[in-house]
């Protein structure tokens, strides 16, 4: 989906703010969210990580940017708990008001009216799966990434769509997030590491100033992504690395 979570290459997010001696959790509620995500998985609210990632992608986009990492997890887990019928949004909201929340507070969770089916539980806890069909690509092959994505979960970021890169590693079959997140099965696919030049992913604008601080003219950048076979088609020409 073309969601707020797909941040690669976006402008306007400012400077990285590093902390010294950062604790694992900045407040107890963050650890509580972590534990609640584990508890939700244990109680069957979601059966795989792909589904949890997609629940986070579906939270309110303003909350996505303003509630922080564990705020995003909270929105995701609340969505899944409600969709699984384990709690209701009204129950949480009532409880939140008791705890001092304001009725106008932004609620991150966005449970669907008709949630995806849960699908089968994972075959095992790992995501690699043996495939009896051969990999279509080998290291050195040039590939072009898909230009369009569906509205659901995918692991092909917007900045790497419609781009030509070179396969640098093959990883065998892996559970396909695009179906697994939606209860449509694991449908394992061959997984590849594909390397792209920086200028392929982010071409220099036509009116680029010589002193532009961006790296679009930097010939010495490679970006590598792990991409599933359905995202790729063969490319016949393009920049070899």
């Amino acid at each position, binding site marked *: 989906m073309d969601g707020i*979570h*797909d*941040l*690669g290459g976006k402008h306007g*997010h400012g*400077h*990285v*703010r*590093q*902390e010294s001696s*950062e*604790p*694992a*959790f900045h*407040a*107890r*509620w963050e650890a*509580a*969210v*972590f534990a*609640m995500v*584990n*508890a939700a998985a244990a109680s069957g609210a979601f059966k795989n990580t792909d589904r949890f*990632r997609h629940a*986070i992608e579906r939270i309110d986009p303003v*909350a996505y940017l303003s*509630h922080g990492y*564990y*705020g995003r997890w909270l929105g995701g887990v*609340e969505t899944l*708990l409600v969709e699984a019928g384990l*709690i209701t949004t009204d129950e*949480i909201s009532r*409880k939140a008001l*008791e*705890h*001092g*929340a304001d009725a106008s*507070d932004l*609620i*991150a969770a966005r449970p669907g009216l008709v949630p995806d089916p849960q699908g089968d539980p994972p075959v095992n806890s790992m*995501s*690699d799966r043996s495939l009896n069909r051969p990999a279509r690509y080998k290291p050195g092959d040039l590939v072009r990434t898909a230009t369009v994505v569906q509205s659901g979960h995918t*692991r092909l*970021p917007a*900045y*790497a769509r419609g781009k030509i890169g070179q396969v640098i590693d093959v*990883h065998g079959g892996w559970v396909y997030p695009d179906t697994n997140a939606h209860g449509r099965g694991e449908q394992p696919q061959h997984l590849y*590491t594909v390397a792209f030049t920086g200028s392929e992913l982010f071409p220099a604008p036509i009116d680029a100033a010589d002193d532009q*601080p*961006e*790296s679009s003219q930097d010939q*010495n*950048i*490679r*970006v*590598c*992504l*792990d*991409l599933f076979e359905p995202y790729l088609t063969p490319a016949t020409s393009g920049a070899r690395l």
Partner: protein
Amino acid sequence: MSNHEHEHQQPPQAIRAEALESLLIEKGLLTPDAIDEVIIRYGERVGPLNGARLVAKAWCDPVFRQQLLEDGTSAVADFNFEGGQVEKLVVVANTEQIHNVVVCTLCSCYPWAVLGLPPKWYKDPAYRSRIVREPRVLLAEMGLALAPDIEIRVWDSSAEIRYMVLPLQPGESVGEDEAQLVERVTRDSMIGVAVL
């Protein structure tokens, strides 16, 4: 923790988290112990010290180094690290010509078992948006100025493979034993936003 003392300073997501926590405890879906376990596990047992041990061993032991770079998953299996989030570990080595740096632009995937939970900046939009587009500029802002002739390789963790950087060993540390070397290895050097 008293809610009433803090309610005016608490961000809305913190209040809602506490509300959900008490609701799940009422419904028997969560025990308070589970929260303490998470705090102890990631505060004390799982952290970048695990990755530092791998780096120090790789600096001292060429056979282990080769194994770590060729098949990181099996190379670390004997260490029995807990912490999750690493089904397949790929370790990428910095050289005099190539500098590696790790990100997850779509969420915040990170090799928990070897580096612990990621720092806040790793999960924030600024890092995730910029490191794939202008890595040299951003790394310089973060205190790591790399010469233009050094190739930067950015690893965007878009599937279940997790990446860790094997930093270059500082010249002055050659001859030190593994325990001393472990002390030198920083979390940021294994993400690739710093060198040693």
